[in-house]
């Protein structure tokens, strides 16, 4: 019962957050000095043509009406225009991109595999690398390994992703010609090419993020080493491995899981800069295109999608948190 209340409360919270995001996004994009109808108007664009285009896209309605149409469209689908050439956007309709002639949700789902490949691949790498080197550093505190790892880590958090990516492309792509400099190959076409095109972005993302996790892990483990229960475990004569493995590591899990959930959520919503630098046609690239071409329905859809992913990941983190730490189960945020 408590669990059900917990889950129910969270879901409601998620819904409220999404609605607020939708509202704020709509207001901001509505204020943009762009008339999406103008882009559908052609050249030369006469006032008559413009009026027809605005009417067709539903832009003559006041903003709250448009928002309501958008929200009802999510549940019931939406139709633009009338007659045989009307455009039908089937439920769930998160908007229709007139510029790309496709439903927003179709555009997002077609790009999702790219972003997912990038995010998940990098995530696996940085988790292993980051937590691993953090543990190593903590256990071997003060040695050369520790110093070297932490030096690498601080350099990692100081390097912007795009800079490292550009350098990587320069060295491994153009100069050494070892990896392709951009593009994406779907895994179903050729797993080898898929991995080969992603290896550089994975490594770049993994390094920058692993640096963060290494620092976090090391800090948490050192803190744990000072805790009473560790001293007790040592006093009890448990092997160093068990001390490290079971007890200290569990202390690390919570903050790492929290951080990981947030990071993964942010990345799955579209790693805007990385995709741009490496020419990967993912959701981040879609968002940049949407902003630059002022494709408002697409922009709104992508923003909502990003918020949805973040909210879901937060929810997942909360669940795992609840499982891992009995103190927080049923408690408040």
């Amino acid at each position, binding site marked *: 019962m408590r669990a059900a209340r917990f889950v129910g409360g969270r879901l409601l919270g998620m819904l409220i957050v999404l609605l607020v995001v939708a509202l704020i996004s709509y207001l901001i994009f509505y204020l943009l000095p762009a008339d999406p109808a*103008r882009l559908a108007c052609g*050249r*030369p664009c006469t006032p*008559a043509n413009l009026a027809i285009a605005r009417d067709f896209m539903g832009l003559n309605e006041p903003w709250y009406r448009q928002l309501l149409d958008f929200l009802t469209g999510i549940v019931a689908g939406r139709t633009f225009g009338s007659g045989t*050439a009307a455009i039908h956007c089937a439920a769930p309709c998160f908007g229709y991109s007139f510029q790309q002639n496709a439903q927003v949700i179709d555009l997002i789902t*077609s790009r999702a595999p790219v972003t997912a490949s990038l995010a998940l691949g990098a995530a696996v790498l940085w988790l292993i690398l980051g937590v691993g080197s953090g543990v190593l550093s903590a256990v071997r505190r003060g040695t050369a390994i520790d110093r070297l790892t932490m030096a690498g880590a601080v350099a990692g958090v100081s390097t912007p992703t795009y800079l490292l990516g550009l350098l990587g492309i320069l060295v491994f792509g153009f100069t050494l010609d070892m990896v392709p*400099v951009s593009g994406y190959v779907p895994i179903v076409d050729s797993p080898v090419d898929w991995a080969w095109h992603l290896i550089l972005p994975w490594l770049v993302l993994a390094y920058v993020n692993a640096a963060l996790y290494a620092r976090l892990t090391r800090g948490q483990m050192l803190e744990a080493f000072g805790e009473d229960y560790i001293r007790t475990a040592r006093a009890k004569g448990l092997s160093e491995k068990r001390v490290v493995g079971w007890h200290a590591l569990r202390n690390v899990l919570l903050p790492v899981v929290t951080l990981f959930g947030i990071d993964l959520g942010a990345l799955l919503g579209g790693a805007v800069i990385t995709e741009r630098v490496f020419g990967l046609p993912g959701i981040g690239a879609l968002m940049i295109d949407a902003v630059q071409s002022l494709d408002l329905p697409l922009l709104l859809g992508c923003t909502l999608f990003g918020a949805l992913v973040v909210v879901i990941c937060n929810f997942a983190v909360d669940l795992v948190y609840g499982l891992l730490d009995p103190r927080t189960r049923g408690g408040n945020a």
Partner: protein
Amino acid sequence: MRLRRIVLPALALALVGCGANEQQPKTSTEAKAGGTLYILSDRATNPFDPAKSQGLPITTLGLVHRRLNAWNTAPGKDATVAPDLGTDAGTTTDGGKTWKFTLKDGLKFSDGSPITSADVKWGVERSFAPTFSGGLGYHKTLLEGGSTYKGPFAGQELNSIETPDTKTLIFHLARPYGDWPWIASTAAFAPVPKGKGTEATYGEHPIASGPYQVSKYQSGIEIRLTHNPQWSKDTDPNRTGLPNEIVFQLGQQSTVISKRLIDDSGNDKDAVSIPFVAPAQLAQLQGNASAKKRLVTSSSGAVAYLAINVTRGPLTDPRVRQAFQYAVDKSAFQVASAGSAALAGDVATTLITPGIGGREKFDLYPAPPTGDPAKAKALLAAAGHPAGLDNLTLVVSNANNSAEKAQAIQAAVARAGIKVTIKPLDSDAFDEAITGSKGDYDLALLSWQADFPSPNANLQPLYASSEIGNGGYNVSRYSNPAVDQAITQAQSVVDPVAAGKQWAAIDKRIMQDSPVVPLIYTRNSFLHGSAVTGFYIPEFPAYPNYLQIGLGQ
């Protein structure tokens, strides 16, 4: 399905194009049929819906769709209008208010049905529907009843297009218009089988009238065109239809496209690119002899210009505007555009661009290429601004390193005491700002390529007062009733030579009022693979003619 490429014994590289590249002293052989042509694109889509297209007749849309008229282009010659579906380019007996076309015999769509006048009419009508608007719409206000027509999908016809029989079309215009044959070469005049083409995604699988049809359309990845068996070269002198298959590779980064074409390995030997070569890659090419040979630069192109908003503050005074003509540094602008004057394009002094019949060359404001700041200052002082101008806004698009070019302008006019703030905008926000009704800017940097090779298309959209705001491109908001009248008069003249004289006079007249400062005629440079033949850039437009490309070895 890939076909084996037929290998030729002789090398065939017929490179033509004035400008920075050298003429090839090689024997040119005819391009042979066969092979797969690769078109590398930086865009995610390339739809083939004629109603929504603003494309030129000689580029990709022309591979799939024929039109009433086509453009006849050849290296070193002005472009002329040529019949495509019709037996002639259109005839008029009443001074340009009514135009008659007769279709050729034996024309068929890719699905086997014959192309009739009703299909051409349906194609034009379709462009009026909101679902399919977005293409060039010059015809919409010229046809009688066009301004209120909303498309054929509710069952209504556009009566000003008459189809007395299956081969004849008669267009009734609202006023005499001598350039109607050029209008009939715009994309909306491609035939669509009557009653079809109702889905918004028609552009992904259209019914073709040209040499190729779309066999696969995968957005963001690739498009495949295969031969349209119903197309015959006998009825189509404007297209060669040589390659067996054409593959578009979508969503490529433009720097990667340039690199692939420079490296010229594997299938890239059979490749051409849609985006032109950026200045950074042009620089890279200089050291690569093989790539340099495959670089084709146009001799002229769109006119890049600085538009001055004549409705704002000190800019209402023509002397102040004329000061800008002397204050700008066109040679710095050339370097900022493409690294050198040869690659960037010639200094511009007229509004009509080279390669268009009727153009006369003149320079009302002679100055050295670096400008004449002293004269600019003198003009400003005479107009009551001895200390120069302050706080002017220059809007510019983020694309195509325009922001850097704007900085060249900013630095140049600062020498005459004119202080300018640059506002870079994303390309669609930029379009909105300059074509919207507010006009909240003092200066704008942009370029314009005529939509068809008539001086009309260089002057009317930019300087007629009807094109101010509401989506029109009269960015300088110039309004001169005498010029408006002269434009309407020149548009009604059917004989292109007589019309040309009137247009040249209008060009001079507008330049006297100095609403814009023409900067350069932008050259475009394109790379192609070593096995591509027939690749040339005509005098106008500054884009290669895709309809005549073939593959050889």
